[in-house]
């Protein structure tokens, strides 16, 4: 039986479809890492995936397991080179995101003296300027989906993003396919209504006339997920 987290992992994996022989980089947590590994083990076998540190793995280990085969070395300096080179699709997180996909992981409030200092921009400016980027947002809410972000860390479609592929949340899949590059609803997860997504979004969202449901994982995908994450740590990452 599949749960919401399985649907989310598969929806994130779908972001990598068609990417070919590039690095699928999931940034932290279970869902994005599982998504890259699932895509590689099923419909996108050319993908490169890493161990969360600096090894490119020849096989695809379960979460927290060491690879049996190592096929490459990607220390931070090489990772920073790869960002500029572009053969990489990264799935980032965001504390705030606006309707053009500008995102913030730096701080909340006035940058000069923030109400809450967060991580700093990290690699988000370069990632979004140079590489295809997707987002995984485990808690879809108006606090995250805001009219305006406090500090643009990752670029939106209106600021020169290279390509924002999709945004996957605990409720829905979204993209930036509207004519002006703004966010629109692609699908709602099974059991979620369009109204719920609209209520959880703090700006006007493009809503097509007929919103499909996000696809359920296949039996094969569920088997792969059970092998990669037998403890189901993906469930703990997804808001109910």
């Amino acid at each position, binding site marked *: 039986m599949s749960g919401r987290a399985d649907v989310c992992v598969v929806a994130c994996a779908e972001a990598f479809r068609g990417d070919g022989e590039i690095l699928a980089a999931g940034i932290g947590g279970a869902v994005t890492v599982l998504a890259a590994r699932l895509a590689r083990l099923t419909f996108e076998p050319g993908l490169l995936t890493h161990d969360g540190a*600096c090894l490119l793995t020849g096989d695809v280990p379960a979460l927290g397991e060491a690879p049996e085969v190592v096929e490459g070395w990607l220390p*931070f300096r090489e990772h920073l080179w790869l960002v*500029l080179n572009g053969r990489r699709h990264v799935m980032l997180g965001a504390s705030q995101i606006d309707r053009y996909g500008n995102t913030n992981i730096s701080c909340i409030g006035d940058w000069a003296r923030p109400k809450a200092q*967060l991580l*700093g*921009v990290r690699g988000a*400016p*370069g990632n979004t*300027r140079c590489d295809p980027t997707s987002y995984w947002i485990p808690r879809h809410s108006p606090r995250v989906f805001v009219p305006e972000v406090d500090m643009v860390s990752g670029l939106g479609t209106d600021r020169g993003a290279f390509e924002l592929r999709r945004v996957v949340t605990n409720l829905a899949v979204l993209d930036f396919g509207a004519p002006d590059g703004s966010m629109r609803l692609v699908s709602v997860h099974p059991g979620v209504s369009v109204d719920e997504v609209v209520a959880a979004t703090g700006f006007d969202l493009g809503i097509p006339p007929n919103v499909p449901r996000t696809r359920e994982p296949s039996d094969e995908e569920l088997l792969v997920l059970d092998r990669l994450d037998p403890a189901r740590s993906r469930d703990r990452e997804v808001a109910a």
Partner: protein
Amino acid sequence: MTKVMTAEEVAASVESGMTVGIGGWGSRRKPMALVRAVLRSPVRDLTLVSYGGPDVGMLCAAGKARRVVAPFVTLDSIPLEPHFRRARQAGAIEFTEYDEGMFMFGLLAAAHRLPFLPTRAGLGSDVMRVNPGLRTVRSPYADGEELVAVPALTMDVALVHMNRADVRGNAQYLGPDPYLDDLYAKAAARCYVSCERVVDDLLEEGPLQSLLISRSMVTGVVEAPGGAGFTSCEPDYGRDEALQRRYAESPWEEWDER
């Protein structure tokens, strides 16, 4: 010829107002023995250049930092560095916030004695807004592309922690990632290397490719076993997560391992 000295001697050579680069990444292979020596010294008003971790957090908490130049400050397994957060939220420090790749190009520019290096990273983001001194350059070739001119991150002093070094200052990493430590050494007027062990023959410890820093870049060597703790120093030891957790949860005044 020996460059072996004590952490206290290194700290005594750091003057108030200097720019200090600190190697490692987040909570990984930080030169914590040297940082602690600086914490105990009277120095202040430092500009810190770092892929920041507890090094930045502690120096902020102790009132040693005037400015921090960083793309992030994190404890890795604990995403947010509590003392850096507090300093930022209190308005106690100035902050030069760069993208990670911009930051590396700043180190590369300094290491190559160039005034700047151009990159796409940073364009279009609020990094340009919060660093009004940043300039762009236009490619002189047919593409005419506009790029960020990342200024060289030159520094007075660099502090790095390595797995092994010899008395002359050649230094070696044995873990999976060199981080950017060689660039700090090359970007600084003076670089001090602490290490787990001073040895006679580095090639008995690891392969040729593990020789990261040349003695021509190094002013002093400090033998400091455990000197990266509680941050990680693979393969000699991993991060001391329990101690890091206690650090993150303790008020600075009660933190007894300063």
